[in-house]
């Protein structure tokens, strides 16, 4: 079995003006496609072939660096497309909102802490909202690492992630990462984040 690049769940221009169509097209059709192809190449003939991406990531410290980089890139981008949407709930609600309030005090505090994690990740990487049992924490990882990896500093189930590789925002925002992170928070699909929180 090999991994397949999923289609975007919406049109390239669906997240305009927050994230532009050209960025979405290159990000999905070129970057995500390359991670998928390179992951399949790296797994060919290995004992990991046929395992789920989650199984592979949970064991990543024992696998070649090409699997770590491309397996992370494959999984992380799948999550990223899914946790954005043009419509959907604009704010967390219900049990997820309660968990956010418990962990961070308020949605506003969560936003500040998540933004800080995204802005202080030096170089390429991701910021995450991570589920640990019933509670939530924020973390960030370098390059294409993520909280499912066995060597991650903060382990758990990522339920929201923002890509802060420059390719995620450079065509529209250039050096202004804060503007991009702010725009991202406008297109978060909180229904999908809640679904992932329920597990």
């Amino acid at each position, binding site marked *: 079995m090999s991994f397949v690049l999923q289609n975007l769940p919406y049109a390239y221009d669906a997240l305009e003006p927050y994230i532009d169509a050209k960025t979405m097209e290159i990000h999905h059709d070129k970057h995500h496609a390359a991670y998928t192809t390179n992951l399949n190449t790296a797994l060919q003939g290995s004992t990991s072939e046929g395992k789920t991406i989650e199984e592979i990531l949970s064991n990543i410290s024992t696998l070649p660096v090409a699997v770590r980089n491309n397996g992370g890139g494959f999984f992380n981008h799948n999550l990223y497309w899914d946790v954005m949407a043009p419509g959907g709930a604009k704010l967390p609600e219900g049990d997820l909102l309660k968990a956010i309030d418990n962990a961070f005090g308020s949605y506003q505090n969560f936003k500040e802490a998540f933004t800080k994690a995204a802005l202080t990740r*030096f170089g390429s990487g991701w910021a995450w909202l991570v589920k640990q049992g019933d509670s939530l924490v924020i973390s960030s990882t370098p390059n294409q690492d993520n909280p499912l990896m066995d060597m991650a500093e903060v382990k758990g189930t990522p339920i929201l992630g923002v890509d802060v590789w420059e390719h995620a925002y450079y*065509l529209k925002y250039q050096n202004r990462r804060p503007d991009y992170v702010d725009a991202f928070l406008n297109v978060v699909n909180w229904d999908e984040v809640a679904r992932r929180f329920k597990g």
Partner: protein
Amino acid sequence: MSFTLPSLPYAIDALEPYISAKTLEFHHGKHHQAYVTNLNNLIVGTEFENADLETIIKKSEGGIFNNGAQVFNHTFYFEQFSATPAAEPTGALKETIEAAFGSLDAFKEAFNKAAATQFGSGWAWLIKDLSGKLSIVQTSNAGCPLRSGFTPLLTCDVWEHAYYLDKQNLRPAYIADFWKVVDWKVVEGRF
């Protein structure tokens, strides 16, 4: 001591069409400037307040290292280009490259591979080590060969901001164009 952003040693559009004026405007005017500003802010009240850049790169950690090394790396990167570059090394540098890598083409091939395979943000370098031997090294993020005691001779910035406006995901196309503007006279001076 307070650091200042060095001016580009050529016009903003001098490297067109290989590196665009727009890329240089952001890369020098925004990114490089931000590293200088951040460094100046971060060193206030620390042991590095009056240190030179090399000391900062060799001894600091965290934000001071990241910004200090990026100030050096970018100055070093921008200084090695020219609109009328010497297209090949000559003399002792040429001989040393041929002795180390077999030929100029073989060196470029190895350097290109280092630049293309540096995963995430970082740099590829031609360095002279403590014994005078030439090698190619990769550094991630702000990594700088001065920290290891090496003498850097040439570098390629492979942070996406160095090429994304011009080449998007096509890093190899950027690396190919990079060679069109490298001034080997500058590299010889460093050697």
